[in-house]
């Protein structure tokens, strides 16, 4: 019994409508209503950004839109807060480097 405890089991979630997004090109399963950060966590991915100064990996920290550690590039747009943005079928999330505008040269 202890083995199959899970968040979904706890709240009796019916989760058959899973869909796919990609993270740095690899497929990740997401559930309708999950944020991008939640979908990435569910896949065991905890980091999707590297910092500007030290190039250190970061992911979601506060989980509620306050810390900005979870910034990601989503469908080509940088600086989206992954903990707030809902996952949609076909979304492409890519690791965001630095301030997210490197390719724009600013």
């Amino acid at each position, binding site marked *: 019994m202890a083995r199959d405890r899970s*968040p979904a089991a706890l709240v*009796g979630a019916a989760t058959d409508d899973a869909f796919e997004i990609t993270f740095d090109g690899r497929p990740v399963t997401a559930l*309708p209503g999950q944020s991008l950060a939640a979908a990435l966590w569910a896949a065991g991915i905890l980091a999707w950004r590297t910092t500007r100064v030290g190039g250190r990996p970061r992911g979601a*920290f506060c*989980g509620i839109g306050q810390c900005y550690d979870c910034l990601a590039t989503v469908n080509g747009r940088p600086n*989206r807060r992954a903990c707030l943005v809902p996952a949609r079928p076909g979304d492409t999330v890519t690791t965001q480097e630095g301030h997210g505008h490197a390719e724009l040269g600013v």
Partner: protein
Amino acid sequence: MPNSASDAPEGGLEDGAEYDLAVIGAGPAGLAGAVTASELGLSVALLDASGQPGGQYYRHPSPDLGAAHPEALHHDWPAFAGLVRRLAAGEVTHLAGHHVWTVARAADTEGSWDVHAVTGADGDGDRPVRVRARAVLLATGAYERQLPFPGWTLPGVVGAGGAQAMLKSGLVLPGRRVVVAGSGPLLLAVAASLAAAGARVPAVVEASDYLGYARRPGALLSHPHKLVEAAVHGAALLRHRVRLRTSSAVTQVHGSDRVAAVTVSRLDRQWRPVRGSGHRIACDALAVGHGLVPQLELAVGLGCTTRRTVEGTHALELGALQETSVAGVWAAGETGGVGGVQLARVEGELAGIAIAARLRGRAMASNARRVRELRRRRARMRAFADAMAAVHAPGPGWPQWLDGATDVCRCEEVTAGRIREAVADYGARDARTVKLLTRAGMGWCQGRMCGTAVACLAAQARGAQPAPPPERRPLAVPLPLGVLGALGRTPAPESDGAAPEDRSDGSDAVG
């Protein structure tokens, strides 16, 4: 006139719609205030950044996740369900997905306020919305207080409240083996829900010693339900074999690109680590937090007076009926001092009644008994919250957890060493000067994560009590430039520092 949709579609609101009352924040305080005022005859707009009501405490999965029992992750769910039923049955216009970035006096209508918001999941919708109202109720809640330590920026280290929020809304865990650490009553609740959802929780590490409760029996005994709640969490933790270590802290996180283990050290009464007491606990995530800090940007921007709380932070100074020092602006819940969900509901209702009385120009006689009862409950719960906050307030020795290379400011990657240098070599004596010299607190989060730590480090140099300044951030949420540009065409909002006005009379005379 407001329509009765309880969740107006994102595009469905005309700019400049007018209401009697704008409530900002749809957590327990805001919900209670909105439905109460609406039921007393006011037209009410309820603005909230989330897609659904509940705030942080009642965060729950989106309906798309099909959770049959969202209440399994909550205490007090029936009270929330009751508020949501009243919201749906009534006339409140619920503006979900609205990130309020400023509130200002309406330039052209005396006694009115303009509430400015941007829409979208993370405020990127670029569509500015302005709601005009005769009264404002700030129910903006709180965010988690963080104290830094070596390794706290490693992926897998998450806020305790953050882990809880991600679990409640996204049904996910940060790892399989999660240590929970920090201080405050929230830790027990977080550990209990993580364990119930299938995580192994090897330990809950609490920096305070809990003996403080024994020294304050009065406050405890007046709140038997709090004891019961603690006992419920305690029983759950025992069942899941979670060890509670008090007077201890995580003083180091190990791992190269994600958490592999933590070192837990014993603390003395000042929260200084006891040399040689550290031991490692293997884990793949750490959920950490040191209580909550009221979220005051909008209020401070309006010039509302703040007070210092027992735990050394700031909260709004409020009158007997929840009015701030700025006449026409009320506040409820954590903005007036962190005190929990029941208190938030009581304050929200009190504010709703007071605002209805003020705007309708009627005496509060018809609600006098209810008001008396609410005020009595509020006083009791505030006293308990203060006692609890004192027990868990950060001890002065915590900066000894830091080494020079520890990032204090996560956004700008400013280390403890550089902050100490600013203090020791360049004479910085407060958080603001440290910020200017080092950029600590100037990044994306505007000091929300490092503010407490920076203020403590700056204050310690002069042996003073650390007192983080009340947050003065010109914009409460990040804003697309186009929105600011568009404002040139509408009445310009007054920015910072509207002069605080005398507390209006009358409101305090009731009850």
